[in-house]
């Protein structure tokens, strides 16, 4: 699936990924391929991304919102 992490100041990340974990307001959210459409608020925490080559990336965010639709994940982070 395709992941974009966008902040007001720049685009942090854009690539195909296998899985990611997000700090949802009600607890950690894991998102894999073919996830159902979802909009969720995020709290302060770390976004963990596993990309195609199984390499891991981490991004710290202060909160934000995520939208999942048709294997496209967009994280609006602060």
């Amino acid at each position, binding site marked *: 699936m395709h992941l974009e992490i*966008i*902040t*007001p*100041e*720049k*685009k942090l990340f854009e690539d195909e990924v296998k899985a990611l974990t997000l700090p*949802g*307001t*009600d607890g950690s*959210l894991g998102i894999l391929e073919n996830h*159902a*459409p*979802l*909009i*969720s*608020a995020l709290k302060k925490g770390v976004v963990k991304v596993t990309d195609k080559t199984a390499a891991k990336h981490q991004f710290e965010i202060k*909160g*934000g*919102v995520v*939208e999942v*639709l048709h294997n496209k994940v*967009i994280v*609006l982070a*602060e």
Partner: protein
Amino acid sequence: MASLKEVRNRITSVSSTQQITNAMKMVSAAKLRRAQDAILRLRPYAEKLQEILGNLSTSAENAESGVYTAQREPKKVLMVVISSNRGLAGAFNANVMKEARKIVNTRYASQLAEGNVSWMSIGKKSGDIITKSQFNLLSSHNELFDGLSFEKVSLLAQRIMDGFVAKEFDRVEIVYNRFKNAAVQILTTEQFLPVPPPVASSEGTKSQSFDYIFEPDQQTIVEELIPKSLKTQLYKAILDSFAAEHGARMTAMNKATDNARELLKELRLTYNKARQASITNEILEIVGGAEALNG
């Protein structure tokens, strides 16, 4: 006719001014590019945020009840004026203040009469004008422009929003110069708070609403997103004004450089004429002297 020395002095002074204006033009051009880049980087974020908000409000019509959307009788008005910290940008700062005053005089005349219009300035220049006109300057934020970042702007936006929630003011307007291109700035007034009701209701029906899962729930997300969109709005306004400032300064300095060139041309002509006149005079004197000796 001015003496040779005077003209020479003026030529030196004008050409050093020209160097300065030219350098300022270059600096502004570079800063303008950076400011434009920042606007471009913000755009995907702002668009996506609007899209998600749009998706949310089409499926829920309860967004009206939020604390930031409450429409109250505008008894107390806050004007946020975005200008620049430095001058030499043509009519950039004067224009934005003129616009702000016009709006207060036309739209909020009764509030003005009761002294219920307060001002907030972003940028030193508008702050100076507001203080001089003895308006009620609530606070000024000149430091925002040194290392402009979303974080700083969002702190300020938060303060304004808190003030709105605490009913310190019932309406907040932002006045700024929007960047169109380097030569053109569009004076813009936006209602910041309360959040104007979404106008894209007809458009919203066509955007198919997917069956989203909401975490934790729709209301919470809307409440979370509206402050974000407000912060983005203010940030965008400031970035726009920043780009417009440099555009305005670039144009102003370009004109100044051109004028200096024009002036230099004239001065050189005067100088050469004076020089020629003095040479002619000298020759006449020599010839006259020689003639006297011969005679």
